[in-house]
Structure formats: structure tokens, C-alpha cells
């Protein structure tokens, strides 16, 4: 049972989109996150650094051949915080008596 806990760091729309992407992934490539969330390289770097400093994300840098490759993943702490944040959002919706149907 996930304890609802609203997380201001995650709730920022841009970070929410990034964390939601990462929540469905084992890891995601930097360019994939950048293109999907429609951010510049620098803006995404800044957001990922914020998440990393909070202990929510892990950033891996490496090379494939000579090409640099950066990927990111949620840490266990980040995944738990995300699940608690989602539970908090659901609680707000449920308390209002409204419902939301999952997309797809």
C-alpha cells in the first residue's frame, strides 16, 4: 500500500513528464527524453541534475564506439517518491468525488 505524499519537486510539469517517462523505463536515453518532452539539451540537463541531486535519478555517461551516450533512470528512492506523488494526486481527485480514466 503506497502512502500518499505530495512531492513538490516532482510536481513541476517538466519534471513530472520526465519522471513519468523514467517510471515506465529501466533506463531512457537522453536524446529520447529530450525529444519526447520537447526540451533543449541544457534544459533537460538542468532538470536531470535537479532530480539527481534529490536522489531521484541516476545519470550514466558512456560511449558507444566513439559516440558519447547519456542515459537516465529512476533510483529506488525516486520511484517510491513518484508512486507516493501519484497516490497523492489520486487522493485529491477521489476526495473531490471525481474520477479519471487512464488514457489508452
Amino acid at each position, binding site marked *: 500500500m503506497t502512502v500518499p505524499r*505530495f512531492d*513538490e519537486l516532482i*510536481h513541476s*510539469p517538466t519534471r*513530472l*513528464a520526465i519522471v*513519468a*517517462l523514467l*517510471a*515506465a*523505463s*529501466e*533506463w*531512457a*536515453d537522453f*536524446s*529520447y527524453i529530450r525529444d*519526447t518532452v520537447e526540451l533543449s539539451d541544457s534544459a533537460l540537463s538542468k532538470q536531470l541534475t535537479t532530480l539527481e541531486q534529490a536522489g531521484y535519478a541516476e545519470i550514466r555517461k558512456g560511449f558507444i564506439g566513439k559516440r558519447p551516450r547519456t542515459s537516465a533512470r529512476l533510483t529506488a528512492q525516486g520511484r517510491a517518491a*513518484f*508512486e507516493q506523488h*501519484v*497516490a*497523492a*494526486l*489520486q487522493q*485529491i*481527485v*477521489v*476526495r*473531490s468525488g*471525481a*474520477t*479519471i480514466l*487512464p*488514457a*489508452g
Partner: protein
Amino acid sequence: MSDEVSPAEAAQALADIQLRQQQVIDLAMIPAWYWWAVGALMVVLAIGVDSHSPVVIGLTVSVFVLGILAATGWVVGRAFRHAQIRNGLIDGRGVVAILGFVALIVAGTIGLAFWLRAAGAGHPATLACVAGGLVMGAGGPVLMRRLRAIMLGNRTGAAL
């Protein structure tokens, strides 16, 4: 802070979360052409088996191996360049669906080939693989839809 978030805002945030997770799940779906390609390659391999000619067998095995490597490499490479789906999204139902599909193709194709040979039909392996390939091509997308539904149901926040 949560007191300042209206139910409408929360609902919108949840919808955004679902959408983002769905984007990753959709990326993991293997395209329909892959299943038809594998089905066709099965037929190519079977033509070699039925020919009983070492040269034809060598040629068809080469086409099969290179074709599988190319098609699978494309699918795996695409995932590698983007994102790897979280393992926890596919639960036991997904594993059963995958294993059931593989078992259906393998057992059905081999069983049909032996039955055709016992019945004296010509080119039993080819005929059986045509049937197996058709099931592969038609069934692959069905399997993907089933896995997609399972993964969407296992998204964080899917149930409310």
C-alpha cells in the same frame, strides 16, 4: 502545497503521467512487419529443408540467419537508442501470453509438418511453415496488443 492543487489540476497531472508512460510502452511494441518477416524467413528455411540439397540448405539457412539478425537487430537497436521498458510492467500474464504464443507456433508447425509427412504430402516442412508463418504474421500483432493492455494496466497510477 497539495492543498493548493485543485482536483482538476490533479486529474490533468495524472492524465499527463499516464500519457508519458504510454509513450514508453508504445515504443516497446514490435511492429507488424517484424512478425511477417520472421514468418517469411521460416518458409525460406523450410524450402531449404524440403529441397534436401546441401547447396540450397546452405543458402536458405544463410538467408534465415541474416534475416533474423537484421530484423531482430533493428527492433533491439531501436529500443536501445530510446528506452528500455521497465521489467515490472510485464507480469505473469504477459509471460504466459509470450510463452503460449511461442509454444503455439513451434508445436503447431512441427506437429503439422510431421502429420503432412505421415500423410504423404509433398514439401511438408514448407507447407507447415507457411501455416506457421501465417499464424506468426497474424498473431504477432495480437500478442503485442495483449502485452500493451497488460503493461498499460500495470502503469503507476493506472487504477483509480
